[in-house]
């Protein structure tokens, strides 16, 4: 059963194509991380999912409803964290809790107040005067109190220091797994995602480069550091190479193939090397390897 189904999405900003015929699904109970460089369409996808953007063609469904026409009942099942932890900052923590509690039938204020008790804020302090980290905890607390089935978190790590990022991730992971929640998350800080997500979707300009369980992706996508016999050796981006970075005689070879397959490939091309080793990658390394540095 899918919480999110997007089918054949095509969108342009003016004449600029964002993506064409993009399709993906998010299974219920999974945490999916959407990764991509700036301008690849992450925010566009989030806006389409939340009904704030009508794609040129195609559609997204959340719990079977078109996201452009979500009913209040379905909206109440979705928790939405806006990029930068935007909230009604003219309210204080009591006012905002009172405000939201009137909208959601399953409202449970206990986790909200548990998080608020950790913040060093005065009861009447407006959210606008809080630090970014404190605001993130307010936004997170409100989502936990709403108790939605699906959480859409847009760049949750923006502006947070490492401590608050870790706190956010650990809370979110524990909550999502314990309560069987579905999470669709984007972040610029990919090392955070590694601790949080089950599945990864990596977007490049106009297309999806990878969508699979993150463990499977990390097990199958590899980096080999190779020293060539001569800097003059040329190596082409064809065949099994997904990406190659060459600086003088050193190359970083990114591929879904095994060491033996890469060696066989190099031999078949007549490329000789003096050293060959597989480098263990973090998710961030793999992301850069797949999408290139620039």
């Amino acid at each position: 059963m899918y919480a999110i189904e997007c089918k054949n999405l095509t969108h342009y900003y003016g004449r600029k194509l964002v993506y064409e015929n993009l399709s993906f699904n998010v299974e219920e109970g999974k945490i999916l991380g959407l990764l991509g460089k700036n301008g690849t369409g992450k925010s566009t996808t989030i806006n389409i999912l939340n009904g704030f953007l009508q794609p040129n063609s195609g559609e997204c469904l959340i719990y079977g409803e078109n996201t452009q026409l979500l009913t209040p009942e379905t909206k109440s099942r979705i928790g939405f964290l806006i990029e930068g932890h935007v909230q009604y900052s003219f309210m204080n923590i009591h006012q905002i809790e009172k405000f939201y509690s009137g909208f959601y039938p399953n409202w449970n204020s206990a986790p909200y107040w548990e998080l608020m008790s950790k913040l060093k804020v005065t009861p009447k302090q407006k959210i606008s005067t809080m630090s970014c980290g404190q605001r993130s905890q307010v936004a997170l607390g409100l989502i936990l109190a709403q108790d939605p089935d699906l959480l859409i978190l847009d760049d949750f790590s923006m502006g947070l220091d490492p401590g608050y990022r870790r706190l956010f991730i650990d809370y979110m992971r524990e909550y999502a797994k314990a309560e069987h929640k579905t999470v669709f998350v984007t972040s610029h800080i990919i090392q955070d995602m590694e601790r949080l997500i089950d599945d990864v979707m990596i977007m490049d300009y106009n297309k999806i480069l990878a969508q699979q369980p993150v463990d499977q992706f990390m097990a199958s996508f590899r980096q080999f550091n190779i020293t060539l016999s001569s800097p003059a050796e040329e190596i082409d981006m064809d065949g099994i190479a997904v990406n190659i970075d060459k600086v003088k005689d050193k190359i970083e070879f990114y591929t879904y193939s095994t060491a033996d397959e890469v060696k066989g490939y190099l031999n078949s091309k007549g490329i000789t090397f003096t050293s060959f080793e597989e480098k263990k990658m973090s998710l961030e390394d793999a992301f850069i390897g797949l999408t290139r540095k620039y």
Partner: protein
Amino acid sequence: MLKSLLYKEWIKIRLVVWIALGLSLVALINIFLKVRHDILFVDASNYWYSFLFRGVTYFSILKFLPFIVGLAVAIAQYFPETVNKRIKLTFHLPVSENGVLIWMHSFGAGILLAVFLTVLVLFNAGSAIFFPANIIRASLLTMMPWFLGGMATYFLVALILLEPMWLFRGLYAAVAAGFVTIFYTGASIGAFEPVLAPIAVITLLLSFVVLFTGYRFRKGEM
């Protein structure tokens, strides 16, 4: 849900509302102290004569008050929704998007109307001490376009603030400036009486245009 929504709107505008009521009260006290003073120096019949036949109004201090209050309430209510596109939070609430806008707008307009009615009732009560009924009626008819202008200002500023595209904001602002000016055009006492009903209807219709910008925002215009 409705109670929660109105609670949020009240938090945004309450300071402006109390300041508006305070300023209005000060303006009214000023008006009637001046009227009392003038009537003591030139007798009442002369004072009434200058109002009825020379067009000397004793309440001109109130002229731009509704405009300023309408502008201030619209900014206090809708500007916070536009910062960081916070209106997304409002549209994400489990209520229909048009429904939420209608309630927000009705609440703002209702509060504005309440402030204006309070001012008019107090003005009427104060005037009754010094003037006969026909002068009070003429005064109220003269002021009516100013208060309708305050309502129109509220509706049009909300439209401008919620509009996602700067080009459209500029166009709306130009139209709004032209339209609102009509309400404050200098005219003789009671001159607007024949057109009060049509401009009241137009002002009421303006209250619905905010739904158009809400729709444009939700479709992703930027």
